[in-house]
């Protein structure tokens, strides 16, 4: 395997891992092990949530550096899991360059769950957490509607590359507005349970988990970045929910 091929495979694997929600140390460790297993003499990898920098010393003594900027980050743990087992395979077995590329392509083009299922799932999250926070059946149905609405809004805004802070403000706004409207129409009396339950769909669970795990692993830079991301998302949600509630109390509605 040539140096170019080696660095290509390692970088591709790192990029897929990082842009789909893996922890920083997992990306660094996977890439390093792949480089070493494929015959590099030394590999130094530096990863932050938006960039990968990789320096390799090849078997013949040549040096090589590659960087990759990550622009789009999402959450797709299926890819993380499959790439994780692929990198294990690369380390233990002798796979050829073409084999790895075929496998990478297969993982990258693996279909996610059907779209209607994803929308329903987020609606269901909202429904379940409305019940969880003490809502009754009627309240949970309104939660379902809000969840579906938030999912559609998030997807539309993500397509236009809106920043994550604004997406969550609008999400919180939708949740509070629909819950207020339903209360105003007399459909339910459990506005708090509905709002709390439906903003759980926006909660940055993966960012919180990964931030803590990164800090444990010693990647303070990535850990703090993700922690700030989680904090910003939380503030965004609170702001979004606060706007309609604040307006209402300002105009003496409640």
């Amino acid at each position, binding site marked *: 395997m040539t140096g170019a091929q080696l660095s290509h495979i390692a970088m591709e694997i790192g990029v897929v891992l990082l842009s789909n929600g893996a922890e920083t140390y997992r990306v660094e460790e996977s890439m390093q092990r792949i480089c070493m297993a*494929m015959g590099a003499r030394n590999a130094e990898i530096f990863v932050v949530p938006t960039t990968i920098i990789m320096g390799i010393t090849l078997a013949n003594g040549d040096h090589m550096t590659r960087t990759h900027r990550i622009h789009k980050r999402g959450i797709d743990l299926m890819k993380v*899991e499959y790439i994780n087992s692929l990198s294990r395979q690369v380390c233990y077995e002798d796979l050829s360059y073409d084999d790895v590329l075929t496998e990478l392509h297969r993982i990258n083009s693996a279909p996610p769950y059907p779209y209607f*299922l994803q929308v329903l*799932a987020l609606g269901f999250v909202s429904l379940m957490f409305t019940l*969880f926070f003490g809502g009754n059946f009627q309240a949970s149905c309104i939660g379902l509607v809000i969840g579906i609405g938030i999912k559609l809004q998030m997807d539309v805004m993500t397509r236009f590359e809106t920043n994550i802070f604004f997406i969550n403000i609008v999400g919180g706004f939708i949740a509070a507005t629909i819950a207020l409207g339903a209360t105003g129409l007399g459909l339910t009396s459990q506005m708090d349970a509905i709002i*709390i339950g439906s903003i759980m769909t926006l909660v940055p669970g993966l960012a919180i988990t990964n931030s803590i795990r990164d800090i444990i692993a010693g990647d303070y830079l990535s850990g703090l970045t993700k922690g700030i991301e989680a904090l910003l998302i939380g503030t965004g949600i*609170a702001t979004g*929910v606060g706007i309609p509630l604040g307006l209402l109390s300002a105009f003496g509605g409640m």
Partner: protein
Amino acid sequence: MMAFIAPCLYAFGGSFAFALVFNIPKNKLLFSAIGGFLGQLTYVLFQFIIASDVALYFLATITISFYAEMMARVTKTPTTLYLAVALIPLVPGGGVYYTMLYLLGGSIDLGITTGLHTLGISGALAMGIVLVSSSINLIRKVMLSGRRKYKRPAVPWKK
């Protein structure tokens, strides 16, 4: 009785749906959702013994992290897959909401109290994960010490 089991079932349902949102592979959906159930079960059971909210969250997180680390080792899967999903029912969404509501309504004292309480819960979550992950990592390192973990192919310069 139902009042104690119901939150666990709701947490299970919520975690399961979140597993779908995170696009977790089909064969692991159920196992990751069980983590959410276990966490809430711990919370509900220890409610009878411990009065402190923060301590309860801490215990629930320890259960979840332990379950996630175990499952990750058994199924050779990243721990995050189980941890992130199971942790979501414990995220203090209600605390953030009420803090915002009190501050908005001008009750600064209540807002600060609730806010600090929420912060305490978040800290409990973080510390729970840190404790379990670090202990398990330490045990794994001790057990693995002296054993090479991956094969290195024959390299030309060593001949």
